[in-house]
């Protein structure tokens, strides 16, 4: 039967997209918007990586350089990474994974997207007006007293985008509580749903603090109300406390959903039940909760109290435990599994290795005395790119490749998929591994010029970045081509478990003809599990 009754073909009018309340269409709207911003943020990175090929500042001046890395950070963090997996894959999959026809509040979901578009438009306006140069962290007193760039406009854009994030989180929490199919108990939920739930808790609990902080910044910069400036009664470290109260948990907004994706992919392509389901589920919640107690590790050299530094250092070590639990359980799932090396699996395995390296170097940074040496160097830059790019972007691409057949009904070229996963892995490591060394040798971050002895490693990094960039363009091309030339995927091309695979691809607007009833645990890949 070829009658187009799926969500993509239900209606072709522009208004049917812009006014849709279908979670799947909203996911596609997010996919298109954040892909655009990914390439905008990437373009800024191309420019400053080119500048860093040579020691003197010859391609761009210091002001432009500062604006470029600020634009890269703001766009990548707030307009790409934070919405990436939750707003695209989460929106698309959460209702289908729990056997629902939509999210709990479909109109609120559409409002989230419009707030995202409004906020990103304001932020883009700030860029077009000449940009801002504070770095994505907007630290005071620079952002309040010294910067002559478009700080207020940029900050207001981020402020608005925050509301989009809060509403998505709220929607997911209520949906997970209220809309599960009959028989789908909490411990039968896919681990991606647990990860989204933990992420949503952070989005709801932390993002308001970011909003308040940014408003206080605007109040001091614009109205001279003393919040952060000691000369008018403020505390100079208060901004950093408030900012990192959001922004450290925000790191987990950016990594937890990726961990959820990896749990789904690893178990599917090992043809095995996942090892230690409750441990993975609860470690997501543990990461979300502990993540709120560690923010002071960004402030070890800020003049913060030495005792606070010690407490934050110890608490930061604790976060390694639930993270390691996940890595061990994924590895144990692979053990004696019948592993197949399809594209999503390559991304997931890449994630495990790169996330582990990123996490371990995080422990180095959480160590008080060592942090004095490597603080504000390229070591830090390399560390968080291993988490956010090596971790989250790999997981995002893995998830896109895993569920692309479900979202579009088409299969992409498996050969090109594997090639691009390999190119991205190689390009990524060549870009960022030299930065660990650079930082350890003492090259500070955020400078457009540097001493001659750092050039070799910088050239390696820039060469890696061009490979990485090519690697990112590949999926963009072959995934688009698959829409026209790809074979039909069928319901379940990977023979995966999970309710989303029981509906046609692409799914009908209502997801399920009949609401499914769940009688078994997730990941019943049982057959090959014999000892």
């Amino acid at each position, binding site marked *: 039967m070829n009658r187009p009754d799926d969500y993509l073909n239900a209606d072709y009018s522009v208004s049917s997209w812009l006014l849709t309340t279908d979670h799947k269409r909203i996911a596609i709207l997010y996919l298109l918007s954040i892909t655009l911003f990914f390439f905008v943020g990437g373009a800024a990175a191309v420019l400053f990586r080119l500048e860093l090929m040579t020691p003197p500042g010859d391609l761009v001046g210091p002001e432009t350089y500062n604006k470029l890395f600020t634009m890269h950070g703001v766009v990548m963090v707030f307009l790409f990474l934070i919405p990436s997996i939750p707003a695209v894959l989460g929106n698309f999959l959460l209702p289908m994974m729990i056997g629902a026809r939509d999210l709990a509040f479909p109109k609120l979901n559409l409002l989230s997207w419009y707030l995202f578009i409004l906020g990103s438009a304001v932020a883009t306006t700030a860029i077009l007006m000449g940009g801002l140069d504070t770095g994505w962290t907007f630290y005071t007193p620079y952002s309040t007293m010294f910067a002559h760039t478009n700080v207020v406009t940029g900050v207001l854009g981020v402020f608005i985008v925050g509301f989009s994030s809060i509403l998505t989180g709220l929607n997911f*929490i209520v949906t997970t509580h209220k809309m599960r199919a009959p028989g789908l108990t909490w411990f039968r939920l896919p681990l991606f749903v647990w990860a989204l739930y933990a992420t949503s808790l952070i989005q709801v*609990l932390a993002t308001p603090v970011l909003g308040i902080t940014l408003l206080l910044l605007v109040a001091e910069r614009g109205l001279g109300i003393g919040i952060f400036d000691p000369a008018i009664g403020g505390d100079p470290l*208060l901004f950093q406390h408030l900012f990192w*109260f959001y922004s450290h948990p925000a790191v987990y907004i950016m990594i937890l959903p990726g961990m959820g994706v990896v749990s789904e992919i690893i178990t599917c392509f090992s043809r095995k039940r996942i090892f230690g389901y409750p441990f993975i589920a609860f470690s997501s919640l543990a990461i979300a909760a502990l993540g*709120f107690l560690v923010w002071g590790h960004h402030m070890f050299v800020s003049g913060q*109290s*030495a005792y606070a530094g010690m407490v934050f250092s110890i608490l930061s070590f604790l976060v390694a435990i639930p993270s390691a639990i996940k890595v061990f359980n994924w590895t144990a799932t692979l053990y004696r599994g019948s592993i197949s090396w399809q594209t999503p699996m390559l991304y997931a395995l890449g994630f495990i290795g790169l996330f582990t390296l990123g996490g371990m170097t995080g422990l180095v940074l959480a160590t008080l005395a060592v942090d004095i040496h490597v603080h504000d160097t390229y070591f830090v830059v390399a560390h968080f790119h291993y988490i956010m790019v090596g971790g989250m972007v790999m997981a995002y691409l893995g998830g896109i490749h895993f569920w692309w057949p479900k979202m579009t009904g088409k299969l992409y070229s498996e050969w090109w998929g594997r090639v691009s996963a390999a190119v991205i892995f190689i390009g990524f490591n060549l870009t960022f591994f030299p930065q660990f060394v650079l930082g350890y040798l003492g090259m500070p971050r955020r400078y457009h010029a540097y001493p001659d002895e750092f050039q070799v490693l910088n050239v390696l990094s820039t060469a890696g970045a061009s490979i990485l960039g090519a690697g990112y363009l590949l999926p963009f091309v072959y995934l688009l081509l698959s829409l026209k030339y790809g074979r039909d995927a069928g319901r379940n091309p990977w023979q995966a478990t999970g309710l989303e695979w029981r509906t046609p691809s692409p799914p009908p607007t209502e997801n399920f003809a009949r609401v499914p009833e769940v009688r078994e645990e997730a990941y019943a890949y049982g057959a090959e599990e014999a000892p």
Partner: protein
Amino acid sequence: MTTPHVRKGTPPKVYVSVYAVLLALTGLTVAAARFDLGRFNLAIALAIAGTKALAVIVYFMHARSAGRLIWLFAGAGFFWLAILITLSLYDPLTRGWLPPPEW
């Protein structure tokens, strides 16, 4: 799916009177600002603001008739606020404990 915890038909009278109370408390804040009560300035302003927030939560946000899960989430919000305040205060309150080294 119906949401059983939202009490249907809270009389408009309740909303109007809570609104009036909120306005009155705003007036009280303005009035209190005219007197310098020293260290009590902040305490009084915060007490009034807290009362208003409570009224909004209990009546406008229907917390009064809400189920346990809603209370759990509302409580979590306050718990996380407490984390923000205590761990942030830990820094300025202990900043002076360690005398700066003599260089």
